Protein backbone atom coordinates (compact mmCIF):
# COMPACT_ATOMS: atom_id res chain seq x y z
CA UNK A 1 0.00 0.00 0.00
CA UNK A 2 1.30 3.44 -0.83
CA UNK A 3 2.56 5.73 1.88
CA UNK A 4 0.11 8.54 1.05
CA UNK A 5 -2.82 6.12 1.17
CA UNK A 6 -1.67 4.74 4.53
CA UNK A 7 -1.40 8.24 5.95
CA UNK A 8 -4.83 9.22 4.64
CA UNK A 9 -6.46 6.04 5.94
CA UNK A 10 -5.00 6.39 9.40
CA UNK A 11 -6.06 10.04 9.51
CA UNK A 12 -9.62 9.14 8.50
CA UNK A 13 -9.84 6.34 11.05
CA UNK A 14 -8.55 8.62 13.79
CA UNK A 15 -10.99 11.36 12.86
CA UNK A 16 -13.89 8.91 12.82
CA UNK A 17 -13.03 7.55 16.25
CA UNK A 18 -12.73 11.03 17.75
CA UNK A 19 -16.01 12.24 16.24
CA UNK A 20 -17.87 9.05 17.23
CA UNK A 21 -16.61 9.17 20.81
CA UNK A 22 -17.50 12.82 21.03
CA UNK A 23 -21.08 12.16 19.82
CA UNK A 24 -21.49 9.22 22.15
CA UNK A 25 -20.52 11.13 25.29
CA UNK A 26 -22.50 14.19 24.29
CA UNK A 27 -25.66 12.14 23.76
CA UNK A 28 -25.23 10.41 27.08
CA UNK A 29 -24.66 13.69 28.93
CA UNK A 30 -27.63 15.38 27.31
CA UNK A 31 -29.85 12.39 27.95
CA UNK A 32 -28.96 12.48 31.64
CA UNK A 33 -29.62 16.22 31.80
CA UNK A 34 -32.98 15.71 30.08
CA UNK A 35 -34.03 13.07 32.61
CA UNK A 36 -32.97 15.33 35.52
CA UNK A 37 -35.03 18.22 34.09
CA UNK A 38 -37.99 15.94 33.70
CA UNK A 39 -37.70 14.67 37.28
CA UNK A 40 -37.49 18.21 38.67
CA UNK A 41 -40.55 19.29 36.66
CA UNK A 42 -42.44 16.26 38.01
CA UNK A 43 -41.43 17.06 41.61
CA UNK A 44 -42.54 20.68 41.34
CA UNK A 45 -45.85 19.64 39.76
CA UNK A 46 -46.32 16.87 42.35
CA UNK A 47 -45.81 19.25 45.27
CA UNK A 48 -48.31 21.77 43.83
CA UNK A 49 -50.87 19.02 43.11
CA UNK A 50 -50.35 17.43 46.55
CA UNK A 51 -51.14 20.68 48.37
CA UNK A 52 -54.08 21.58 46.15
CA UNK A 53 -55.67 18.11 46.12
CA UNK A 54 -55.17 17.67 49.91
CA UNK A 55 -56.81 21.02 50.59
CA UNK A 56 -59.80 20.28 48.30
CA UNK A 57 -60.07 16.71 49.73
CA UNK A 58 -60.22 18.04 53.31
CA UNK A 59 -62.68 20.89 52.59
CA UNK A 60 -64.92 19.50 49.83
CA UNK A 61 -64.44 15.78 49.82
CA UNK A 62 -63.15 13.06 47.48
CA UNK A 63 -65.33 13.86 44.48
CA UNK A 64 -64.22 17.46 44.30
CA UNK A 65 -60.58 16.40 44.70
CA UNK A 66 -60.81 13.85 41.88
CA UNK A 67 -62.53 16.40 39.71
CA UNK A 68 -59.69 18.82 40.32
CA UNK A 69 -57.21 16.19 39.25
CA UNK A 70 -59.19 15.44 36.14
CA UNK A 71 -59.49 19.11 35.33
CA UNK A 72 -55.80 19.85 35.77
CA UNK A 73 -54.32 20.56 32.37
CA UNK A 74 -50.76 19.20 32.11
CA UNK A 75 -48.09 21.61 30.80
CA UNK A 76 -47.22 19.21 27.97
CA UNK A 77 -49.16 16.75 25.88
CA UNK A 78 -46.66 14.07 26.81
CA UNK A 79 -47.63 14.47 30.47
CA UNK A 80 -50.52 12.48 31.99
CA UNK A 81 -52.03 12.99 35.49
CA UNK A 82 -54.40 10.51 37.13
CA UNK A 83 -55.71 9.34 40.52
CA UNK A 84 -54.69 5.95 41.79
CA UNK A 85 -56.26 4.27 44.80
CA UNK A 86 -54.17 2.26 47.18
CA UNK A 87 -51.03 2.73 49.24
CA UNK A 88 -48.16 1.22 47.28
CA UNK A 89 -45.99 2.75 44.49
CA UNK A 90 -44.88 5.94 46.08
CA UNK A 91 -41.90 7.76 44.53
CA UNK A 92 -40.33 8.16 41.13
CA UNK A 93 -39.81 5.34 38.66
CA UNK A 94 -37.72 5.72 35.48
CA UNK A 95 -38.85 3.21 32.89
CA UNK A 96 -37.35 3.04 29.39
CA UNK A 97 -40.50 4.40 27.80
CA UNK A 98 -41.69 6.81 30.52
CA UNK A 99 -41.02 8.56 33.82
CA UNK A 100 -43.65 7.94 36.52
CA UNK A 101 -43.94 10.07 39.69
CA UNK A 102 -46.38 9.21 42.47
CA UNK A 103 -47.29 11.51 45.32
CA UNK A 104 -49.51 10.33 48.28
CA UNK A 105 -52.52 12.38 49.43
CA UNK A 106 -53.11 12.39 53.24
CA UNK A 107 -56.49 13.44 54.79
CA UNK A 108 -57.03 13.36 58.55
CA UNK A 109 -53.94 11.26 59.02
CA UNK A 110 -55.16 8.57 56.61
CA UNK A 111 -53.64 7.81 53.26
CA UNK A 112 -56.39 8.14 50.67
CA UNK A 113 -54.40 7.23 47.52
CA UNK A 114 -51.95 9.08 45.28
CA UNK A 115 -51.67 11.26 42.28
CA UNK A 116 -49.61 9.72 39.44
CA UNK A 117 -47.74 11.92 36.93
CA UNK A 118 -46.40 10.01 33.95
CA UNK A 119 -44.45 11.33 30.99
CA UNK A 120 -43.34 9.54 27.86
CA UNK A 121 -39.60 9.44 27.14
CA UNK A 122 -40.17 9.10 23.40
CA UNK A 123 -38.86 12.57 22.92
CA UNK A 124 -35.51 11.61 24.44
CA UNK A 125 -35.26 8.55 22.23
CA UNK A 126 -36.06 10.64 19.21
CA UNK A 127 -33.43 13.13 20.28
CA UNK A 128 -30.83 10.38 20.65
CA UNK A 129 -31.70 8.96 17.28
CA UNK A 130 -31.48 12.41 15.67
CA UNK A 131 -28.20 13.10 17.34
CA UNK A 132 -26.75 9.77 16.24
CA UNK A 133 -27.88 10.31 12.67
CA UNK A 134 -26.56 13.89 12.66
CA UNK A 135 -23.26 12.81 14.14
CA UNK A 136 -22.97 10.03 11.65
CA UNK A 137 -23.67 12.40 8.79
CA UNK A 138 -21.24 14.92 10.18
CA UNK A 139 -18.58 12.28 10.59
CA UNK A 140 -19.18 11.07 7.07
CA UNK A 141 -18.91 14.58 5.66
CA UNK A 142 -15.82 15.25 7.72
CA UNK A 143 -14.25 12.00 6.62
CA UNK A 144 -15.02 12.72 2.98
CA UNK A 145 -13.69 16.29 3.22
CA UNK A 146 -10.60 15.34 5.19
CA UNK A 147 -10.09 12.32 2.95
CA UNK A 148 -10.33 14.41 -0.19
CA UNK A 149 -8.14 17.20 1.12
CA UNK A 150 -5.57 14.85 2.54
CA UNK A 151 -5.61 12.77 -0.63
CA UNK A 152 -4.91 15.83 -2.74
CA UNK A 153 -2.31 17.17 -0.32
CA UNK A 154 -0.86 13.70 0.24
CA UNK A 155 -0.45 13.12 -3.46
CA UNK A 156 0.87 16.65 -3.91
CA UNK A 157 3.30 16.74 -1.02
CA UNK A 158 4.15 13.08 -0.51
CA UNK A 159 2.98 10.80 -3.32
CA UNK A 160 4.34 12.67 -6.33
CA UNK A 161 7.66 13.72 -4.85
CA UNK A 162 8.24 10.23 -3.44
CA UNK A 163 7.40 8.80 -6.83
CA UNK A 164 9.96 11.15 -8.38
CA UNK A 165 12.51 10.19 -5.75
CA UNK A 166 11.91 6.49 -6.33
CA UNK A 167 12.19 6.93 -10.08
CA UNK A 168 15.37 8.96 -9.65
CA UNK A 169 16.84 6.39 -7.27
CA UNK A 170 16.05 3.64 -9.78
CA UNK A 171 17.74 5.68 -12.53
CA UNK A 172 20.81 6.21 -10.36
CA UNK A 173 20.83 2.50 -9.59
CA UNK A 174 20.82 1.80 -13.32
CA UNK A 175 23.75 4.16 -13.77
CA UNK A 176 21.98 7.24 -15.12
CA UNK A 177 23.08 10.12 -12.90
CA UNK A 178 22.40 12.95 -15.36
CA UNK A 179 19.60 15.47 -14.80
CA UNK A 180 18.53 17.31 -11.67
CA UNK A 181 15.55 16.32 -9.54
CA UNK A 182 13.21 19.35 -9.18
CA UNK A 183 11.30 19.20 -5.87
CA UNK A 184 10.64 22.63 -4.38
CA UNK A 185 9.69 21.64 -0.87
CA UNK A 186 11.16 22.88 2.37
CA UNK A 187 10.77 19.63 4.22
CA UNK A 188 12.43 16.27 4.58
CA UNK A 189 11.47 15.25 1.06
CA UNK A 190 12.94 18.48 -0.33
CA UNK A 191 16.09 17.87 1.68
CA UNK A 192 16.27 14.31 0.43
CA UNK A 193 15.92 15.51 -3.16
CA UNK A 194 18.63 18.11 -2.64
CA UNK A 195 20.89 15.46 -1.12
CA UNK A 196 20.17 13.15 -4.03
CA UNK A 197 21.06 15.89 -6.51
CA UNK A 198 24.26 16.62 -4.63
CA UNK A 199 25.03 12.91 -4.60
CA UNK A 200 24.48 12.73 -8.36
CA UNK A 201 26.77 15.72 -8.89
CA UNK A 202 29.44 14.03 -6.80
CA UNK A 203 28.90 10.81 -8.73
CA UNK A 204 29.24 12.68 -12.02
CA UNK A 205 32.42 14.35 -10.79
CA UNK A 206 33.82 11.06 -9.60
CA UNK A 207 32.85 9.39 -12.83
CA UNK A 208 34.44 12.16 -14.90
CA UNK A 209 37.59 11.98 -12.81
CA UNK A 210 37.60 8.21 -13.25
CA UNK A 211 37.07 8.48 -17.00
CA UNK A 212 39.84 11.04 -17.29
CA UNK A 213 42.13 8.86 -15.21
CA UNK A 214 41.35 5.79 -17.29
CA UNK A 215 41.96 7.69 -20.51
CA UNK A 216 45.19 9.06 -19.10
CA UNK A 217 46.26 5.56 -18.09
CA UNK A 218 45.36 4.13 -21.49
CA UNK A 219 47.29 6.88 -23.21
CA UNK A 220 50.25 6.31 -20.93
CA UNK A 221 50.11 2.59 -21.66
CA UNK A 222 49.99 3.32 -25.36
CA UNK A 223 52.99 5.64 -25.06
CA UNK A 224 54.92 3.02 -23.11
CA UNK A 225 53.98 0.35 -25.65
CA UNK A 226 55.04 2.59 -28.51
CA UNK A 227 58.32 3.45 -26.81
CA UNK A 228 58.88 -0.22 -25.99
CA UNK A 229 58.39 -1.21 -29.59
CA UNK A 230 60.80 1.45 -30.76
CA UNK A 231 63.24 0.42 -28.04
CA UNK A 232 63.12 -3.18 -29.25
CA UNK A 233 63.64 -2.10 -32.83
CA UNK A 234 66.38 0.22 -31.64
CA UNK A 235 68.17 -2.58 -29.81
CA UNK A 236 67.96 -4.78 -32.87
CA UNK A 237 69.17 -1.97 -35.10
CA UNK A 238 72.02 -1.03 -32.83
CA UNK A 239 73.03 -4.68 -32.44
CA UNK A 240 73.20 -5.09 -36.19
CA UNK A 241 74.90 -1.75 -36.67
CA UNK A 242 77.55 -2.56 -34.07
CA UNK A 243 78.26 -5.95 -35.54
CA UNK A 244 78.48 -4.40 -39.01
CA UNK A 245 80.83 -1.65 -37.88
CA UNK A 246 84.06 -3.63 -37.97
CA UNK A 247 83.51 -5.73 -41.14
CA UNK A 248 82.23 -2.66 -43.00
CA UNK A 249 85.26 -0.73 -41.86
CA UNK A 250 87.58 -3.45 -43.06
CA UNK A 251 85.80 -3.76 -46.42
CA UNK A 252 85.71 0.00 -46.93
CA UNK A 253 89.35 0.44 -46.18
CA UNK A 254 90.38 -2.50 -48.34
CA UNK A 255 88.34 -1.19 -51.23
CA UNK A 256 89.88 2.25 -50.90
CA UNK A 257 93.35 0.74 -50.75
CA UNK A 258 92.73 -1.15 -53.97
CA UNK A 259 91.23 1.92 -55.62
CA UNK A 260 94.24 4.04 -54.80
CA UNK A 261 96.89 1.50 -55.76
CA UNK A 262 98.50 2.85 -58.97
CA UNK A 263 100.10 -0.48 -59.85
CA UNK A 264 96.66 -2.01 -60.54
CA UNK A 265 94.70 -1.72 -63.76
CA UNK A 266 92.17 1.07 -64.26
CA UNK A 267 89.15 -1.30 -64.41
CA UNK A 268 90.13 -2.94 -61.15
CA UNK A 269 90.57 0.40 -59.46
CA UNK A 270 87.24 1.68 -60.81
CA UNK A 271 85.50 -1.43 -59.54
CA UNK A 272 87.10 -1.03 -56.13
CA UNK A 273 85.99 2.60 -56.14
CA UNK A 274 82.39 1.55 -56.77
CA UNK A 275 82.61 -1.06 -54.01
CA UNK A 276 83.90 1.69 -51.73
CA UNK A 277 80.99 3.97 -52.67
CA UNK A 278 78.45 1.25 -52.00
CA UNK A 279 80.01 0.47 -48.65
CA UNK A 280 79.93 4.19 -47.99
CA UNK A 281 76.18 4.11 -48.47
CA UNK A 282 75.81 1.18 -46.12
CA UNK A 283 78.04 3.00 -43.64
CA UNK A 284 75.80 6.04 -43.82
CA UNK A 285 72.74 3.92 -43.06
CA UNK A 286 74.47 2.12 -40.22
CA UNK A 287 75.50 5.46 -38.71
CA UNK A 288 71.92 6.65 -38.87
CA UNK A 289 70.80 3.44 -37.17
CA UNK A 290 73.32 4.09 -34.43
CA UNK A 291 72.03 7.64 -34.10
CA UNK A 292 68.52 6.24 -33.65
CA UNK A 293 69.64 3.60 -31.18
CA UNK A 294 71.72 6.00 -29.12
CA UNK A 295 68.57 7.27 -27.41
CA UNK A 296 68.63 4.02 -25.52
CA UNK A 297 72.23 4.27 -24.39
CA UNK A 298 72.73 2.03 -21.39
CA UNK A 299 74.41 4.62 -19.23
CA UNK A 300 72.21 7.42 -17.91
CA UNK A 301 73.29 11.00 -18.56
CA UNK A 302 75.64 12.09 -15.83
CA UNK A 303 77.62 15.18 -14.92
CA UNK A 304 80.23 14.19 -17.48
CA UNK A 305 77.70 14.48 -20.27
CA UNK A 306 76.37 17.88 -19.25
CA UNK A 307 75.62 19.85 -22.34
CA UNK A 308 76.04 23.54 -22.96
CA UNK A 309 73.03 25.82 -23.57
CA UNK A 310 72.21 25.63 -27.27
CA UNK A 311 71.35 28.62 -29.46
CA UNK A 312 68.16 27.36 -31.11
CA UNK A 313 67.88 30.27 -33.57
CA UNK A 314 71.42 29.74 -34.89
CA UNK A 315 70.72 26.01 -35.23
CA UNK A 316 67.47 26.71 -37.11
CA UNK A 317 69.18 29.19 -39.44
CA UNK A 318 71.93 26.68 -40.27
CA UNK A 319 69.37 23.97 -41.00
CA UNK A 320 67.32 26.32 -43.19
CA UNK A 321 70.42 27.42 -45.10
CA UNK A 322 71.28 23.77 -45.76
CA UNK A 323 67.83 22.91 -47.12
CA UNK A 324 67.05 26.18 -48.91
CA UNK A 325 68.04 24.81 -52.39
CA UNK A 326 65.77 21.76 -51.96
CA UNK A 327 62.91 23.99 -50.78
CA UNK A 328 63.34 26.40 -53.71
CA UNK A 329 63.29 23.49 -56.13
CA UNK A 330 59.92 22.47 -54.72
CA UNK A 331 58.60 26.07 -54.63
CA UNK A 332 58.47 26.11 -50.86
CA UNK A 333 59.18 28.93 -48.43
CA UNK A 334 60.80 28.08 -45.10
CA UNK A 335 59.92 30.59 -42.38
CA UNK A 336 61.41 30.77 -38.89
CA UNK A 337 59.22 32.22 -36.15
CA UNK A 338 60.99 32.66 -32.83
CA UNK A 339 59.83 33.96 -29.45
CA UNK A 340 61.53 37.26 -28.53
CA UNK A 341 63.22 35.59 -25.56
CA UNK A 342 64.36 32.17 -26.60
CA UNK A 343 65.13 29.36 -24.19
CA UNK A 344 68.58 27.81 -24.36
CA UNK A 345 68.14 24.14 -23.52
CA UNK A 346 71.24 22.14 -22.70
CA UNK A 347 71.80 20.26 -25.94
CA UNK A 348 74.31 19.07 -28.48
CA UNK A 349 73.91 21.66 -31.28
CA UNK A 350 75.05 19.34 -34.10
CA UNK A 351 72.55 16.69 -33.03
CA UNK A 352 69.68 19.17 -32.70
CA UNK A 353 70.58 20.55 -36.12
CA UNK A 354 70.40 17.01 -37.46
CA UNK A 355 66.94 16.62 -35.88
CA UNK A 356 65.76 19.84 -37.46
CA UNK A 357 67.25 18.94 -40.85
CA UNK A 358 65.55 15.54 -40.79
CA UNK A 359 62.20 17.09 -39.83
CA UNK A 360 62.60 19.74 -42.55
CA UNK A 361 63.45 17.13 -45.19
CA UNK A 362 60.37 15.21 -44.10
CA UNK A 363 58.22 18.38 -44.32
CA UNK A 364 59.60 19.25 -47.75
CA UNK A 365 58.96 15.75 -49.06
CA UNK A 366 55.41 15.86 -47.64
CA UNK A 367 54.65 19.12 -49.51
CA UNK A 368 53.41 18.18 -52.96
CA UNK A 369 52.38 21.71 -53.92
CA UNK A 370 53.96 25.14 -53.37
CA UNK A 371 53.49 26.39 -49.83
CA UNK A 372 55.17 27.17 -46.59
CA UNK A 373 57.13 25.26 -44.00
CA UNK A 374 57.23 27.03 -40.66
CA UNK A 375 59.75 26.48 -37.91
CA UNK A 376 58.57 27.85 -34.55
CA UNK A 377 60.88 28.24 -31.57
CA UNK A 378 59.72 28.94 -28.03
CA UNK A 379 59.27 27.69 -24.51
CA UNK A 380 56.36 25.76 -23.08
CA UNK A 381 55.22 24.06 -19.91
CA UNK A 382 54.50 20.42 -20.64
CA UNK A 383 54.05 17.01 -19.12
CA UNK A 384 56.49 14.34 -20.20
CA UNK A 385 55.07 11.11 -21.69
CA UNK A 386 54.69 8.18 -19.31
CA UNK A 387 57.61 6.18 -20.65
CA UNK A 388 60.05 9.02 -20.11
CA UNK A 389 61.65 9.70 -16.76
CA UNK A 390 61.32 13.46 -16.53
CA UNK A 391 64.32 15.46 -15.35
CA UNK A 392 64.33 16.43 -11.67
CA UNK A 393 63.21 20.04 -11.50
CA UNK A 394 64.27 22.24 -8.65
CA UNK A 395 61.56 22.76 -6.09
CA UNK A 396 58.90 25.31 -6.99
CA UNK A 397 59.89 25.64 -10.62
CA UNK A 398 57.52 24.60 -13.40
CA UNK A 399 58.63 21.86 -15.78
CA UNK A 400 59.80 23.96 -18.72
CA UNK A 401 60.63 22.70 -22.14
CA UNK A 402 62.09 24.34 -25.19
CA UNK A 403 59.72 23.76 -28.10
CA UNK A 404 60.88 23.43 -31.69
CA UNK A 405 58.05 22.79 -34.10
CA UNK A 406 58.08 22.19 -37.83
CA UNK A 407 54.75 22.69 -39.58
CA UNK A 408 54.08 21.91 -43.20
CA UNK A 409 51.07 22.30 -45.50
CA UNK A 410 51.58 18.93 -47.10
CA UNK A 411 49.64 15.73 -47.56
CA UNK A 412 49.47 14.87 -43.86
CA UNK A 413 49.90 11.50 -42.25
CA UNK A 414 47.10 8.95 -42.18
CA UNK A 415 46.05 7.64 -38.76
CA UNK A 416 47.21 4.10 -39.62
CA UNK A 417 50.68 5.33 -40.45
CA UNK A 418 51.03 7.79 -37.58
CA UNK A 419 52.02 5.29 -34.85
CA UNK A 420 54.78 3.85 -37.01
CA UNK A 421 56.55 6.92 -38.38
CA UNK A 422 59.46 6.71 -35.94
CA UNK A 423 60.19 3.07 -36.72
CA UNK A 424 63.48 2.61 -38.57
CA UNK A 425 63.10 1.84 -42.28
CA UNK A 426 59.43 2.69 -42.17
CA UNK A 427 58.79 5.00 -45.09
CA UNK A 428 55.92 6.02 -47.31
CA UNK A 429 58.26 7.67 -49.76
CA UNK A 430 59.14 6.17 -53.11
CA UNK A 431 62.10 3.85 -53.30
CA UNK A 432 65.27 5.91 -53.45
CA UNK A 433 63.69 9.03 -51.91
CA UNK A 434 64.64 8.17 -48.37
CA UNK A 435 65.91 5.40 -46.19
CA UNK A 436 63.10 5.72 -43.66
CA UNK A 437 65.63 6.57 -41.01
CA UNK A 438 65.31 10.36 -40.84
CA UNK A 439 62.51 10.47 -38.29
CA UNK A 440 63.99 7.51 -36.38
CA UNK A 441 67.25 9.38 -36.03
CA UNK A 442 65.41 12.52 -34.88
CA UNK A 443 63.50 10.43 -32.36
CA UNK A 444 66.68 8.78 -31.06
CA UNK A 445 68.52 12.07 -30.64
CA UNK A 446 65.61 13.80 -28.92
CA UNK A 447 65.16 10.86 -26.54
CA UNK A 448 68.83 11.00 -25.77
CA UNK A 449 68.23 14.60 -24.68
CA UNK A 450 65.45 13.38 -22.33
CA UNK A 451 62.93 15.03 -24.66
CA UNK A 452 60.21 13.75 -26.95
CA UNK A 453 58.50 14.46 -30.26
CA UNK A 454 54.76 14.97 -30.70
CA UNK A 455 53.03 14.79 -34.05
CA UNK A 456 49.74 16.35 -35.08
CA UNK A 457 48.53 15.71 -38.57
CA UNK A 458 45.51 16.32 -40.72
CA UNK A 459 44.99 14.64 -44.05
CA UNK A 460 45.76 17.09 -46.91
CA UNK A 461 46.13 19.98 -44.44
CA UNK A 462 49.62 19.22 -43.21
CA UNK A 463 51.53 17.96 -40.21
CA UNK A 464 53.23 19.54 -37.24
CA UNK A 465 56.17 17.90 -35.48
CA UNK A 466 56.87 19.34 -32.04
CA UNK A 467 60.18 18.65 -30.36
CA UNK A 468 60.27 19.12 -26.58
CA UNK A 469 63.68 19.55 -25.00
CA UNK A 470 63.91 19.86 -21.22
CA UNK A 471 65.41 23.05 -19.84
CA UNK A 472 68.05 22.94 -17.16
CA UNK A 473 67.17 20.57 -14.37
CA UNK A 474 68.67 19.88 -11.01
CA UNK A 475 71.94 18.07 -11.45
CA UNK A 476 71.79 14.43 -10.44
CA UNK A 477 74.77 12.39 -9.40
CA UNK A 478 74.61 9.09 -11.22
CA UNK A 479 77.89 7.77 -9.82
CA UNK A 480 80.77 6.85 -12.11
CA UNK A 481 79.33 5.58 -15.37
CA UNK A 482 81.63 4.07 -17.96
Amino acid at each position, binding site marked *: MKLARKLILSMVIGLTVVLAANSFYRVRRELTAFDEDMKQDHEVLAQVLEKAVTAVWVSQGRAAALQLIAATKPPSQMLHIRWVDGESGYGQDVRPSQLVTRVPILAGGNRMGFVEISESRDFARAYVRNTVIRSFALTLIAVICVGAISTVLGIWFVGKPIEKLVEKAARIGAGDVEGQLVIRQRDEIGELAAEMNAMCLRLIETRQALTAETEERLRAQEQVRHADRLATVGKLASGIAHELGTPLGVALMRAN*MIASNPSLGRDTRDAAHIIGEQIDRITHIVRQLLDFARGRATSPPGPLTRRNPADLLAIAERAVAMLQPLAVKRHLVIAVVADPVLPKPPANPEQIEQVLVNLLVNAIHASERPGKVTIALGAVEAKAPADLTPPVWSEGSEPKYALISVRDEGVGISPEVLPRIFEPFFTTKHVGEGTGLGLSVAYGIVREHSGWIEVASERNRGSCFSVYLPMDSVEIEWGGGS
Partner: protein
Amino acid sequence: MGIIIPGVDMHSEDRLPRVVIAEDDEDMRDVLCELVAGLGVEVASASSGGDLILLLTDDSPVDLLITDVRMPWMTGFQVALSARNSGLGIPIIIVTAFPDDALRAQVDHLGSAVLLAKPFRPEELLSLVRARLPANAATA
Protein backbone atom coordinates in the same frame (compact mmCIF):
# COMPACT_ATOMS: atom_id res chain seq x y z
CA MET B 1 95.70 0.83 -11.06
CA GLY B 2 98.90 2.14 -12.57
CA ILE B 3 101.32 0.99 -15.21
CA ILE B 4 104.99 1.74 -14.96
CA ILE B 5 106.16 3.03 -18.30
CA PRO B 6 109.92 3.37 -18.51
CA GLY B 7 111.35 6.21 -20.60
CA VAL B 8 108.62 6.53 -23.16
CA ASP B 9 109.39 10.10 -24.06
CA MET B 10 113.10 9.55 -24.60
CA HIS B 11 112.91 8.84 -28.32
CA SER B 12 115.59 10.40 -30.48
CA GLU B 13 114.84 12.71 -33.40
CA ASP B 14 116.20 10.45 -36.13
CA ARG B 15 113.98 7.43 -35.59
CA LEU B 16 110.64 6.74 -37.26
CA PRO B 17 107.50 7.62 -35.27
CA ARG B 18 106.06 4.52 -33.59
CA VAL B 19 102.29 3.89 -33.58
CA VAL B 20 100.72 1.21 -31.39
CA ILE B 21 97.45 -0.26 -32.69
CA ALA B 22 95.23 -2.43 -30.46
CA GLU B 23 92.28 -4.23 -32.08
CA ASP B 24 90.91 -7.70 -31.39
CA ASP B 25 89.45 -8.28 -34.86
CA GLU B 26 92.26 -9.68 -36.99
CA ASP B 27 91.08 -8.31 -40.36
CA MET B 28 90.49 -4.90 -38.87
CA ARG B 29 93.86 -4.97 -37.14
CA ASP B 30 95.62 -5.92 -40.39
CA VAL B 31 94.00 -3.20 -42.45
CA LEU B 32 94.63 -0.60 -39.77
CA CYS B 33 98.26 -1.61 -39.56
CA GLU B 34 98.65 -1.51 -43.36
CA LEU B 35 96.95 1.87 -43.63
CA VAL B 36 98.97 3.48 -40.88
CA ALA B 37 102.19 1.83 -42.03
CA GLY B 38 101.48 3.43 -45.40
CA LEU B 39 102.20 6.77 -43.74
CA GLY B 40 105.79 5.61 -43.29
CA VAL B 41 105.75 5.01 -39.59
CA GLU B 42 106.66 2.05 -37.43
CA VAL B 43 103.62 0.09 -36.32
CA ALA B 44 103.21 -2.32 -33.38
CA SER B 45 99.94 -4.14 -32.79
CA ALA B 46 98.13 -5.83 -29.92
CA SER B 47 95.02 -8.01 -29.97
CA SER B 48 93.89 -7.59 -26.38
CA GLY B 49 94.05 -5.23 -23.47
CA GLY B 50 96.75 -7.39 -21.89
CA ASP B 51 98.93 -7.33 -25.01
CA LEU B 52 98.49 -3.60 -25.19
CA ILE B 53 99.73 -3.15 -21.63
CA LEU B 54 102.78 -5.27 -22.44
CA LEU B 55 103.46 -3.16 -25.55
CA LEU B 56 103.13 0.09 -23.65
CA THR B 57 105.38 -1.07 -20.82
CA ASP B 58 108.31 -2.38 -22.89
CA ASP B 59 111.26 -0.09 -23.53
CA SER B 60 110.31 1.03 -27.05
CA PRO B 61 109.02 4.57 -27.49
CA VAL B 62 105.35 5.17 -28.44
CA ASP B 63 104.19 8.31 -30.28
CA LEU B 64 100.53 7.50 -30.89
CA LEU B 65 98.06 4.96 -29.57
CA ILE B 66 95.11 3.74 -31.64
CA THR B 67 92.93 1.38 -29.66
CA ASP B 68 89.58 -0.33 -29.95
CA VAL B 69 87.39 -0.11 -26.86
CA ARG B 70 85.91 -3.60 -26.66
CA MET B 71 88.70 -6.10 -26.38
CA PRO B 72 89.31 -9.23 -24.35
CA TRP B 73 91.00 -8.99 -20.97
CA MET B 74 90.65 -5.23 -20.53
CA THR B 75 89.01 -2.51 -22.61
CA GLY B 76 91.20 -0.22 -24.63
CA PHE B 77 89.75 2.71 -22.76
CA GLN B 78 90.73 1.29 -19.40
CA VAL B 79 94.28 0.72 -20.63
CA ALA B 80 94.42 4.25 -22.04
CA LEU B 81 93.12 5.71 -18.81
CA SER B 82 95.65 3.76 -16.70
CA ALA B 83 98.47 4.76 -19.03
CA ARG B 84 97.39 8.41 -18.84
CA ASN B 85 97.26 8.23 -15.05
CA SER B 86 100.75 6.74 -15.05
CA GLY B 87 102.11 9.72 -16.97
CA LEU B 88 101.85 8.66 -20.61
CA GLY B 89 101.17 11.92 -22.43
CA ILE B 90 100.95 10.71 -26.04
CA PRO B 91 97.89 11.38 -28.24
CA ILE B 92 95.29 8.60 -28.28
CA ILE B 93 92.70 7.67 -30.90
CA ILE B 94 89.88 5.58 -29.42
CA VAL B 95 88.01 3.53 -32.03
CA THR B 96 84.58 2.16 -31.15
CA ALA B 97 81.40 0.78 -32.64
CA PHE B 98 79.51 2.03 -29.56
CA PRO B 99 79.95 5.80 -29.53
CA ASP B 100 77.55 6.97 -26.83
CA ASP B 101 77.70 10.33 -25.09
CA ALA B 102 79.07 8.86 -21.87
CA LEU B 103 82.06 7.43 -23.70
CA ARG B 104 82.51 10.68 -25.64
CA ALA B 105 82.62 12.58 -22.36
CA GLN B 106 85.09 10.12 -20.86
CA VAL B 107 87.33 10.41 -23.89
CA ASP B 108 87.18 14.21 -23.68
CA HIS B 109 88.18 13.89 -20.05
CA LEU B 110 91.20 11.79 -20.93
CA GLY B 111 92.90 14.75 -22.66
CA SER B 112 94.54 14.78 -26.11
CA ALA B 113 92.36 11.86 -27.07
CA VAL B 114 89.79 11.60 -29.86
CA LEU B 115 86.93 9.22 -30.51
CA LEU B 116 86.46 7.64 -33.93
CA ALA B 117 83.22 5.79 -34.58
CA LYS B 118 83.20 2.60 -36.65
CA PRO B 119 82.62 2.25 -39.53
CA PHE B 120 84.88 5.03 -40.79
CA ARG B 121 86.56 5.90 -44.09
CA PRO B 122 90.31 5.40 -44.42
CA GLU B 123 90.84 9.16 -44.92
CA GLU B 124 89.09 9.91 -41.64
CA LEU B 125 91.56 7.75 -39.74
CA LEU B 126 94.57 8.88 -41.72
CA SER B 127 93.87 12.57 -41.24
CA LEU B 128 93.50 12.02 -37.50
CA VAL B 129 96.77 10.07 -37.41
CA ARG B 130 98.63 12.63 -39.48
CA ALA B 131 97.51 15.45 -37.26
CA ARG B 132 98.81 13.63 -34.21
CA LEU B 133 102.25 12.50 -35.40
CA PRO B 134 105.38 14.54 -34.55
CA ALA B 135 105.77 17.44 -36.97
CA ASN B 136 108.87 16.04 -38.72
CA ALA B 137 107.45 12.56 -39.23
CA ALA B 138 107.58 11.06 -42.65
CA THR B 139 104.32 10.84 -44.56
CA ALA B 140 103.45 8.70 -47.50
